[in-house]
């Protein structure tokens, strides 16, 4: 019912941290081709932050869905083994979106927000109907909002109207960073 033993959970967390950082950096490097300086504005950061937030929620959705199927988390710290890879991927995806498809950021965020809200409400009703315990509606909402967030974001991204905002006269801004990783 509780699945993974504590020593393995600790090992998994360490592995997850390493994997997540690598994943996020790779994703940004692969998808985030540099745009002109004006394009690398707050939208990219906002998209990255929104992606991180979405990742945190999806993490909770996954953990909640697993708990409903019988594998609860032993303690709050165990969420990190899920949160880091999911959060890293979604942060990387958000940042990449902001850097390379900035004209789609608004619609993607709007779609995600609407999907989250609708999913939360529908999840509450469904959770209340299928689970008898007091946590049922909340679990339904957490899972439903996660599904809604994903569906809404994708829909917003795909339906977004794109136009050329390229201005070749401006030079790209290069961002560099160094992470002091201890391993």
């Amino acid at each position, binding site marked *: *019912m509780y699945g993974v*033993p504590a020593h393995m959970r600790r090992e998994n967390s360490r592995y997850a941290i390493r994997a997540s950082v690598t994943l996020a950096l790779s994703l940004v490097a692969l998808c985030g081709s540099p745009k002109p300086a004006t394009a690398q504005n707050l939208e990219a950061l906002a998209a990255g932050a929104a992606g991180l937030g979405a990742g*945190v929620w999806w993490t909770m959705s996954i953990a909640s869905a697993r708990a409903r199927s019988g594998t609860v988390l032993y303690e709050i710290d165990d969420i990190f083994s899920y949160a880091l890879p999911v959060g890293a991927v979604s942060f990387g995806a958000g940042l990449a979106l902001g850097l390379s498809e900035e004209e789609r950021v608004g619609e993607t965020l709007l779609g995600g927000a609407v999907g989250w809200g609708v999913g939360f409400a529908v999840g509450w009703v469904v959770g209340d109907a299928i689970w008898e315990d007091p946590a049922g509606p909340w679990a339904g909402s957490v899972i439903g909002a996660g599904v809604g967030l994903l569906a809404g974001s994708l829909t917003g991204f795909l339906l977004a109207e794109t136009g050329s905002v390229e201005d070749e006269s401006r030079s790209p801004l290069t961002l560099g960073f160094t992470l002091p990783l201890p391993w």
Partner: protein
Amino acid sequence: MVRALRAGLCLALSGLWVGCSTPAPPQLPAAIPGFAPDEAGITGVLFVIGDAGETLGVGNPVLRKLRREVEEWSAALAADSAVGVLFVGDNIYPNGLNPVGHPDRGRDSLRLWNQFRVVDGPAAARYGTPAVFIPGNHDWGGEFGEEGLAFLRREEELFSIARSQGLEVDLIPPANDPGPEVVEIGGAKIVAVDTHLWLELDDDLRRARAVQQVRAAVREPRDRLVVFAAHHPFATGGPHGGLLPFLPSLGVHPMLHRSGTLGQDITALPYQEMLGDFSSAFSGTEALVVYAGGHEHNLQVIERTAPGQPNWTLVSGTGSNFRGVDEIDGTRFMASAPGYMRIVTLDDGSTHLEVVAADGAHQECPSDQYPDYETCLRVGVAAFEVVFRRQLR
């Protein structure tokens, strides 16, 4: 426009801060008179203390005070097992008893011996005053299955050693047994279960048998006191019951709690199923059922508010640490303070509960603050007083 937006944001953040912050811990009430050991008509005294496995050095003021009380009451009642001590789990922090050769083995072992010493006085020895210990999740090393069982079996061996030295101490139920284990001490029938094991019981037959045995164990006539001893509480207004600040985790922790994702919290599905098992047993008895648990590091007295609940739920988990608590339905007393509870039975059939506690400053005696360790203990012991009293029946 910008100013309005800024003001709105400021207001929203302030509201979030106020609305989502944890309420301040309740003040400890003023001392009130409690039962005296030489008072006539007392037939049994049961002390309830929990989560005492994180003591520093060779004990803390709570355990010293309890030892003194055990001596006084054992001498006064002068009858075999008329006084008893119930430790409701988490006897060794943080991860149970490590194996011989492990760097933490000495510390782990000392933490359990500090609790054994509560019944090592001359009066306790003379009248066979027992201390029974329930396993908690930390005694399982935070593990399940064989991995966790190894921790509990090692702890069980330490009990055998203590018994061979004449101490009346026992771990109930024994390792790998969900219970119930029944003992009669301190004027009460103790029905003990291992809730950490119960939470992972996926063998339907084993579970059904255990539920059946619990039903039979608590089925007693009206005049009997049944103390249902378990580590995980039946109800709580502490962190495992949802008292979680919003900001440190930006809402993640409260949301995981509410959705029943955390297995040690009362909202988790396995926890709810376990309470359902117990509830079905409590419904079928006329006895006074007092559910004594720990897990939360606070003191709570909660009265029954609905059928299927025990008559009283006690949370006594401040043997070595204390944290916040908030009021829930049925709360009659709550405190975030070091202490323990005592259940006193009288020959007129009445049962009384008293909460003994002290200011938080007297939880432990860190060596860096008190060069004179014994002075710290003595000052601490003197600070404990009865702060709540209630007739349970």
